[in-house]
């Protein structure tokens, strides 16, 4: 197995774990954690492809990863802000109980 395949497999596994977390947990914050894991797995893919790709000096994959980290930070801030605002409104972060369109 080439090293790249190893990194890709790890990234795929982390992505699947994050997806499972996002789909199975009740708590909205843990769903966000799952999404963060998925984003991180994508970053690992980008960096691995950059490292073993034909033109690492072009820095494309690395730049993608750096920008993706910045976007993930913004996503986390807004997402958690939303969770807190929902909690204030509905007194819960349990996603199964948030089944009303009407506030």
């Amino acid at each position, binding site marked *: 197995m080439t090293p790249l395949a190893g990194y890709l497999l790890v990234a*795929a596994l982390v992505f699947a774990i994050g997806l499972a977390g996002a*789909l199975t947990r*009740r708590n909205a914050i843990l769903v966000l954690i799952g999404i963060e894991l998925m984003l991180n797995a994508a970053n690992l893919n980008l960096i691995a492809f950059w490292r073993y790709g034909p033109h690492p000096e072009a*820095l494309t994959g690395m730049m993608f990863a750096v920008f993706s980290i910045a976007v993930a930070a913004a996503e*986390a801030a807004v997402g958690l802000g939303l969770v807190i605002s929902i909690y204030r409104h509905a007194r819960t972060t349990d996603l199964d109980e948030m089944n009303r369109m009407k506030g």
Partner: protein
Amino acid sequence: MTIVFWVLAVTTISGGLAAVLLKNTVHCALAVTGAFAGLALLFLQLDAQFAGFAQILVYIGAVAILVVFAILLTRGSETPESGVFSRTWFAGLCIAAGVFAVMAWAILNSVSALPHETVAPDVSVLQIGNALMGRYVLPLEIVALLLTAAMIGAVIVAMHEKGDVK
């Protein structure tokens, strides 16, 4: 495939698994921090120093702290008696397993096409800075705008509404 890689891979994956499986929400947040750290070390293992340190700074220094703050603000650290997994957990697990199976199948089928060990690229921070200010200056500006908008948005969303009953 070195031993270091396997150790880091196991750390990352077990951190991720613990974050998904543990009952206590704060434990989940701490476990996901472990997974973030493992991923940052994997970045360093891939000679991406800048991205690795940025990962530690942003994820462990900011995102993990935000998550634990949100957990404490929403009293999420108390385990609900209705269980921590949603009613449709089985479907979710099946979807995740399916996604992993497809991706693993794709990767293992293309192993022969993947490049072998290459020499480590020698990238200095200077080059990254020049790239950020040259070729990638437009994305950089857009990210700056996005972060500003996100910050203002997050503050407004999380701010107390007028007439909010405590």
